[in-house]
């Protein structure tokens, strides 16, 4: 789960990370009064859970409350990568002397968190990592001992941070690690961390991603989920315990198991079409869940054919078939479908589906080939 910039920075601040004064606004009017409160120039920043808002015009520096109101009005009317902007952050503007990158995430291979720093923050840090790897400094953190001061000091020395900022930097790095681990985050990032013209260290931007599996112990953080930012289909999928992701292709697919779902998508692509979605119904899904899943697929106007690939184990093929039939009863669409069922109760499953107008397949490749052919045909019509 991603947190908005303003949420991330509020959390950071609780752990001693210095952030600009500022507040979030839902309306242009609010933005104006926050700007007046802050005095001086402010930055209006779109709060959306996608990158690239700067290039899209979602960040504006203004000098008066009136300009703030106008800028907020414009930004609140924008869509960024398809997401409408519903909130803006109004932060006091900072005169920037230099930009640092500071972030912490988990290193799977090392099996521990890693803190990354660079004197070359602000611009695309991944580009720096690629072209100037020496400009990136890493320190691995023992998950049981936590971040130690000497590790933060090592980062400060390695990025050649002026000595006068060490104290604040060490506090902020240790704070950033604590907020990362205490929130069960998978990412906590300050980019840029700036040195201002009046020589203060300030976290201008902040980003956090939380481990969904750990949200049960952070009810306060779980509440921060911004439902407005999720596509309605994905929100519904989550509610029913389905793992669904909309993609741009034409073949809707329903599979049990994430690995098999990815393999199914790969095979569709291999035979010349694109999957319309990733959808894993999980293990042991009942008819109701399957029906919801199929409805999600059919709601996507791009879908020209549907492919079911079920390998029954805990999941029972007859349950899946019942779910499919229930959804079809409601939708009455005419999207062609291919079903491939293997394993627990597969015969009953096929028997049930025989009632529906559906093409049967024996193997994964067979099913994919048939689905691709149907989609092509359906597009030609």
């Amino acid at each position: 789960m991603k947190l908005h910039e303003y949420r991330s920075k509020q959390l950071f601040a609780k752990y001693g990370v210095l952030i600009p004064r500022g507040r979030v606004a839902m309306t242009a009017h609010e933005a104006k009064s926050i700007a007046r409160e802050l005095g001086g120039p402010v930055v209006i920043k779109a709060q959306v859970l996608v990158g690239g808002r700067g290039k899209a015009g979602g960040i504006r520096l203004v000098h008066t409350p009136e300009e703030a109101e106008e800028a907020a009005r414009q930004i609140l009317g924008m869509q960024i990568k398809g997401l409408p902007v519903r909130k803006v952050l109004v932060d006091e503007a900072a005169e920037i002397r230099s930009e640092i990158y500071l972030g912490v995430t988990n290193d799977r291979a090392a099996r521990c968190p890693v803190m990354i720093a660079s004197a070359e923050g602000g611009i695309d840090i991944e580009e720096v990592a690629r072209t100037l790897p020496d400009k990136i400094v890493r320190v691995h953190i023992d998950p049981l001992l936590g971040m130690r001061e000497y590790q933060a000091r090592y980062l400060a020395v390695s990025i050649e941070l002026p000595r006068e900022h060490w104290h604040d930097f060490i506090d902020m790095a240790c704070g950033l690690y604590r907020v990362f681990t205490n929130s069960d985050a998978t990412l906590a990032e300050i980019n840029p961390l700036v040195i201002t013209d009046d020589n203060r260290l300030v976290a201008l931007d902040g980003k956090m991603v939380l481990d969904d599996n750990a949200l049960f112990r952070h009810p306060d953080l779980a509440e921060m989920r911004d439902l407005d930012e999720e596509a309605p289909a994905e929100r519904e999928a989550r509610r029913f315990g389905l793992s669904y992701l909309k993609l741009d292709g034409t073949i809707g697919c329903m599979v049990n198991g994430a690995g098999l779902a990815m393999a199914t998508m790969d095979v569709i692509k291999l035979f010349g079409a694109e999957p319309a979605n990733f959808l894993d119904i999980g293990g042991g899904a009942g008819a109701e869940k399957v029906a919801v899943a199929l409805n999600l697929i059919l709601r996507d106007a791009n879908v020209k054919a549907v492919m079911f690939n079920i390998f029954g184990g805990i999941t029972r093929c007859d349950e899946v078939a019942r779910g499919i039939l229930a959804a079809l009863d409601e939708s009455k669409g005419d999207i062609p479908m291919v079903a491939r069922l293997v394993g627990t109760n597969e015969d009953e499953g096929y028997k049930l589906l025989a009632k529906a107008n559906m093409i049967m397949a024996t193997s994964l490749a067979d099913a994919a080939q048939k689905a691709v052919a149907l989609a092509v045909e359906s597009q030609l019509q």
Partner: protein
Amino acid sequence: MSILINKDTRLIVQGITGREGIFHTSRMMDYGTQVVAGVTPGKGGEWVLEGKVPVFDTVHRAVEITGANTSVIFVPARFATDAVMEATDAGIALIVCITEGIPIRDMMKVRQYLDQQGSRLVGPNSPGLLSPGECKVGIIPGHITQPGNIGVVSRSGTLTYEVLYALKLQAMGISTCVGIGGDPINGTSFIDVLGMFEVDAHTDKIVLIGEIGGTDEERAAEYISDHITKPVVAFIAGRTAPPGKRMGHAGAIVEGGAGLAADKIAALEYAGVAVVEYPEKILDFLK
């Protein structure tokens, strides 16, 4: 024959009285696995499955009384890391964790604890292990495969079944199938299992099933190049996955530029592994 589990495996089931626990215990016993006990705190003294399996309050007591050497864990995610530690403290040599959804931070801690102890963990988020005709630990359907000389190691669940089933249709069998689990931090890696297959006299060929995310496959490729003499054929799921999107498995996040399917396939091919385009193609390389 087999690696890790066999006819002598004496298994306990942690979380035996849960819905999943009891269902799969029954399946494992049908398959012939020696399930010697179950553990559910607070239910010690009961017997389940028509009085065939005694339940204990602690793994320690279960081991003491039954001489168990292997454990399979079906407890909910928030209790699962404790279950793993309890098993290792009680001297269990092989711990198989089926539970999915364990927070990464918990797994990092428990993995570090295990590294100091003597136990091997398979999983979490693993379908378990299966040695056809010998023993089944976990949830891999028993009837979709048969004994043979192919070793299978996989990060996936149903995708593995797909491969096992395709093999069976061609009358090909396996020595052992090990599901190492799809989570970012786990107990047993591809490398560990590859090493075991290499020295197992009854495994002649190896199937490796990977997916996007992490660098386990890349490290496996390096290891194969240096240490594995038996032929290896691989399938990597997720060629079409968009980078940076979460794909159900926590393990399927594409991190930075690393972990893309193309990187993994290139690394494996460089190591001499035959990488196929879709699962059924694996058969062509095993005939």
